[in-house]
């Protein structure tokens, strides 16, 4: 963790009693100076100005040929034709020698850096869900609507989240100068953006070059309208959106990028998104779609070309937003309706289940999270359906969404409210149940997590010990803490019998934020505690180790 990051997140606490806590909590310092942005944030009810850019890898991306377990002999035997090795791979990940990326993903490799929590790219392994569906369309609906595989919903998790944050949306008339809550590049609005109030975002196929701010003199829709008049109302709403939002986009303040993007549709769309974010748009969520990853045949060429575009476009986007100085408010998330079958079918692969996904950004603690996919015959035979990968329950895709909400989109707000909002989005709201599961995990992959005070009188002492992340820990986990004064510091790891297993800090330290990492892989699975002891007080927290 970089020192300035901690200072920023620490500031959230400092301003928590400010007159505008909802606005300011979690915002980087420099955002405070932007009055248009502040007003925009007030309008959207956001706790911060963090932005999420979602990239849908449409068609079912073959995760095994993305994040390649190239040292696993089962991989090569399952894929005599498609198996990647040698120059078809990047170098092994510096902190994870059993994995390498597809050679087309050199951009991702550079974003990964040295990993270990210090890179900008997190790999979440074995993302999936119970009773997986191998249909493109039902699978996509499950990911977009974020339901258990046997539950059907018409709203998307992003739409529901935006509705929770903006309960009065849509307004009866859209004010001139408005910016959309969410924006998708595409011809029709994804159900990802639907709420019980209809579309919470807009879809455009490209950035418009002109707006048409015409005024309309329309007869009212009748009371208790018949279906045709309901549809007419829909068309009028779309017309208003097309005119007002398009005009806002046309008149954005930033119309050029800081870096040159590659020539692909995805890159062009990401470059437009960078401009909108740099222009101070209050839009929280962007969606772009790339595909088709449905590589039943000719996968080496087809997926390779797509990954080249993906990797290069995301790298350019990241460099661009860093050059703009807005990178700390942006994170990128990928998803796809399923992974593909480990065993090849010839020149391609058929539909499968779990797959790795990526979270990218300067505020992401880049590392590999989770274990390598299990490709041995016994594991595959036990897959559902048989022959497929088994997902990691910790990496249920809803936990990824919960993490994105808890640690990013809602970060800085009141934790009780955040928990309630996540429940409403992922478990159930007033009208619909989305999952029988009521417990979601925050995976600890973002730096700027909401901070929590611990101890009896934290304001007096300024002593903080944060939850380690990831928690549960399986490899390297990080412990952040802060000291009110200089002096001797001890941090020890204890088992449930109270026996200290390891002393990981034993030194004199300066006041302010501090951080230490611990390799949990050497501990057996189980519950442990870590204890911070200083002259100002002692704080203890639990840590779960899972393998």
């Amino acid at each position: 963790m970089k020192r300035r990051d901690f200072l920023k997140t620490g500031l959230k606490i400092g301003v928590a009693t400010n007159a505008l806590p909802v606005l300011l909590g979690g915002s980087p310092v420099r955002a405070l100076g932007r009055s248009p942005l502040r007003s925009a944030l007030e309008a959207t009810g956001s706790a911060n100005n963090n932005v999420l850019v979602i990239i849908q890898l449409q068609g079912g991306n073959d995760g095994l040929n993305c994040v390649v377990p190239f040292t696993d002999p089962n991989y090569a035997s399952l894929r005599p034709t498609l198996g990647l090795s040698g120059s078809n791979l990047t170098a092994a990940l510096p902190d994870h020698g059993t994995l390498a990326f597809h050679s087309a993903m050199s951009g991702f490799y550079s974003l990964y850096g040295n990993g270990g929590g210090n890179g900008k790219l997190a790999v979440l392994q074995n993302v999936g869900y119970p009773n997986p569906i191998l249909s493109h369309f039902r699978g996509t609906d499950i990911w977009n609507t974020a339901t258990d595989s046997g539950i059907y919903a018409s709203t998307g998790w992003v739409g529901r989240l935006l509705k929770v944050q903006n309960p009065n949306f849509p307004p009866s008339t859209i004010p001139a100068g408005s910016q959309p809550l969410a924006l998708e590049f595409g011809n029709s609005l994804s159900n990802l953006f639907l709420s019980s109030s209809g579309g919470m975002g807009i879809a455009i196929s490209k950035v418009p070059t002109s707006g048409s701010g015409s005024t309309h003199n329309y007869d009212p829709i009748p009371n208790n309208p018949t279906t045709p008049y309901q549809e007419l109302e829909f068309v009028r709403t779309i017309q208003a959106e097309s005119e007002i939002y398009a005009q806002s986009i046309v008149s954005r303040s930033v119309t050029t990028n800081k870096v040159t993007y590659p020539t692909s549709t995805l890159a062009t769309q990401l470059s437009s998104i960078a401009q909108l974010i740099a222009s101070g748009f209050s839009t929280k969520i962007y969606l772009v779609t790339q595909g088709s990853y449905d590589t039943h045949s000719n996968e080496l060429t087809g997926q390779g070309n797509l990954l080249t575009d993906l990797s290069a476009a995301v790298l350019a986007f990241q460099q661009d937003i860093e050059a703009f100085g807005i990178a700390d408010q942006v994170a990128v998330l990928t998803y796809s309706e399923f992974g593909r079958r480990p065993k090849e079918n010839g020149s391609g692969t058929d539909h499968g289940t779990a797959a790795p996904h990526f979270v990218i950004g300067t505020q992401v603690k880049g590392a590999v999270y989770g274990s390598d996919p299990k490709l041995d015959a016994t594991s595959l035979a036990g897959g559902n359906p048989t022959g497929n990968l088994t997902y990691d329950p910790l990496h249920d895709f809803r936990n990824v969404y919960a993490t994105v909400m808890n640690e990013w989109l809602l970060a800085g707000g009141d934790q009780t409210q955040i928990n309630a909002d996540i429940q409403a989005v992922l478990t159930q709201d007033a009208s619909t149940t989305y999952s029988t599961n009521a417990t979601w995990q925050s995976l600890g992959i973002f730096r700027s997590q909401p901070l929590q005070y611990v101890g009896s009188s934290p304001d007096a002492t300024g002593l903080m010990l944060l939850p380690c992340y990831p928690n549960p820990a399986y490899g390297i986990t990080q412990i952040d803490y802060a000291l009110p004064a200089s002096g001797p510091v001890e941090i020890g790891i204890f088992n449930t019998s109270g026996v200290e297993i390891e002393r990981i800090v034993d030194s004199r330290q300066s006041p302010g934020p501090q951080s230490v990492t611990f390799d949990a892989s050497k501990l057996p699975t189980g519950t442990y505690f870590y204890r911070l002891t200083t002259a100002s007080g002692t704080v203890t927290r639990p840590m779960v180790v899972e393998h």
Partner: protein
Amino acid sequence: MERRTFITSTGAGLLGSALGAGSILGAFDPSKLVAKPSAFNRLSANRSRPGGGQALSTESNDLTPYAGPWGDAELRHLLRRTMFGVPESQFLAAQALGSMNAVVDQLLACQDTTKVPLPAKLASWVDNMPKGDLQDPAKTNQTRLMAMERQQIENWWFDQIAQENLSIRQRMTLLWTNHFVTGSATVNIPGYMYYYLLLCMQYALGNFKDFASAIATSSAMLVYLNGDQNYVTGKNSFVNENFARELMELFTLGINFPGTDIPNYTQADIEQSARALTGWQHGNYKQTPVAPFTGILWDGTNGNPNWHDTTNKTFLGQTGNWGLSDVIDIIFQQPDDATATPPGIPAGFPAGYTSAYWASQKLYQEFVYYVPNPSVVDAMARLMLANNFEIAPVMQALLTSAHFYDVNVVGAQIKSPVHYIGSLIREFGITYPAFDPTDPPVKEVDKNGFNVYTDTNPTLSIVTAAILNVSQGQELLNPPNVKGWPGGENWLSAGTFQGRETYSNSILNNLFVNTKNNLALSFSADSYAAQIANDTTLSAEALSQSLEDLSLSFTLGPLESGDLDTDLQGTYKNPNYQYNTLGVKEFALYLTSLPEFQLF
């Protein structure tokens, strides 16, 4: 407005009550179904949002025949729903036919291709298309050639759409290319797409089961869903599940039994049927047609017995050495009480119900409303079964049903891009140079010695490119994925709406020119108005009303109709001429900008 009352006369009050539902539906009680939201049902029941999104509940929720008045409004509704916009001349021709049944018979006459022949063959090149390696840069010329041929097929088809007479054929054809989906960008061999398109025209109102068989072995489908890469050689198995899955999920069954969460098939059924489908090869235009391919629209498809898996397969409860025809037969027997597939559904559904329901649902969504009404679809499915999967009787009953003419139906559909542009061209009298059937390419050699292929129909290319690019992403013969365009409210977004406005403005302002800088698409305000009357003594209000009737399914209120009247009178109002050319153009621009023009 008092003078505009025609639609409200199509009142639901004219309809009888929903009669005999129990006896018609047998063991199936659609009222007990739990409707599941899906892509077309974009929005929930919450009415705080604009838009529809729920199944229509009308007075008649079955196929009870329509017995209300048969007036202009009803006739226009029928024609709008079965064609791509209705020129006044065709409305008048249909009016002259008299009764509803006579018009419907005319619209469906294309079911007999001897009576309403298929279009003449596009060109000879569709038969001798070389199978090129499009990845090879040395074949750039061939790539250009193929792109030109692909464009030519789109142009040819759009010309068929724009010039269509009183017939449902092209609407059905577009529906089927959006059901049995293939895509020209993936298939990459234009001749295959031509024959596939012709197949969809031939079976437009044909037999759904036979259609499924024919499509399964069309070269375009074999390429698009990798059926041609699904094979076994000796001990090596290269079973590719792509086609087998979509055959059941999207083409013939659907994931779940109607109204339930009970899966119609399992992953094992996909794997087993994929094995049964091994060995098919798409055509290479060099083989001689052999039985059973002689006598049908042959595009070169063949099976290679050496690549077919001849071991037993267990598919939907039945075991045997199955091949394609067996797979189709077994699918079209579902649900099957004898084998209890799929397990868990109540007994008593007729064999074949699942596929009949699936096809009927698609028909309903296309011709009535994008959210299916389970009760009406059930009645359609049973009628289709009674007619051994024939499509025409179902369409005949649907288009003459009370449900179809309900006040909740008229005007409730959103135009697709093709429909939007079709209605612009056909209703506003847009003209363009006749389609040139010259075999492409017209090859010229440029100064660098490279072959240059010239578009022989640049005007139509502007139209078909507009459908894709200018406005709305519906490239003919190239849906976004194997599920096709989702339709309904998905047609309109902030981006596509702006594209439509841009397009209609450009076309009515005569801004489209072809590559030789000649006017490509031509709008004449005088010709547009002359569809109604050459009589310049016609009052502006009467002309305005007639032109609104021509294009809109809605009765406009005083604000909108008042603005239109003002536009039409124009700023140069002449006591002898109640309207003028400039006014007519302003009128047309305003009419097409109305949200009502997006609906039909």
